[in-house]
């Protein structure tokens, strides 16, 4: 699929899990692009973390400088007797997230100008453990650009997009996920 280089604001959000079949279809769409020699794909999956029980307290850091992802953390919100994460309920500040994503996309193409295309999808809503919630897919003539771009874009998204995750636990409590 030819992707225009105009970098208009694209909606990365999808309701519910990312279907593995969608990943396959996405790959297949590139079969007409004879200039592509490499695809790199990152897929995020909801992990059934085991929580330690009672208040899961994380280190507290101040907001000070830095973006929220580097804030460190806030005290554990919900009291929990412990349990597995059975799902994550994702919400987002959509407008800001899409604006940030547009900037990240433009910077990625500036850093790796040989990159042929870049596709990003992130789930919203309740995603059960074991399901896919995040996909970053880059294609390029050679593997290095695709590989580096995907790693860089994944890190930037985790740090800069205002996406929030409520971890639903098997004991019917919940905790708020936060990227470190």
């Amino acid at each position: 699929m030819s992707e225009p280089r105009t970098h208009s604001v694209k909606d990365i959000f999808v309701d519910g899990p990312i279907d593995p079949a969608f990943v396959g279809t996405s790959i297949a769409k590139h079969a007409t692009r004879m200039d592509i020699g490499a695809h790199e794909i990152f897929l995020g999956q909801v992990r059934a973390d085991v929580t330690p029980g009672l208040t899961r307290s994380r280190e507290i850091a101040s907001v000070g400088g830095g973006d929220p992802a580097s804030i460190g953390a806030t005290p554990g919100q919900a009291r929990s007797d412990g349990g597995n994460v059975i799902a994550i309920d994702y919400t987002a500040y959509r407008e800001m997230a899409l604006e940030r994503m547009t900037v990240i996309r433009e910077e990625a193409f500036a850093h790796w100008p040989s990159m042929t295309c870049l596709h990003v999808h992130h789930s919203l809503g309740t995603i059960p453990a074991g399901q896919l919630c995040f996909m970053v897919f880059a294609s390029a003539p050679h593997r290095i650009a695709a590989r580096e771009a995907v790693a860089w874009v994944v890190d930037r998204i985790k740090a800069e997009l205002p996406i929030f995750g409520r971890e639903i636990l098997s004991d019917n409590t919940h905790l708020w996920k936060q990227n470190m």
Partner: protein
Amino acid sequence: MNVLLFGMIAEKAGADLLSVEASSTGELRRSLAARISGLDQLSYAIAVDRRIVHQDVPLTGSEEIAVLPPFAGG
């Protein structure tokens, strides 16, 4: 002005939108702390017109203001 709340802060406030009077982001933080119990123990950022501001900046009331708890994408 209306302030957008997200994630654990919306949960604490019991709302995803609050009407707050503030002439700066510093005043906004104080107003929010008075309105939302326990907020002062949380780390959060303030976005003005979809950009995070780290300094105390003046507000006219026409901006889009959002209160953002730590991010969890991916």
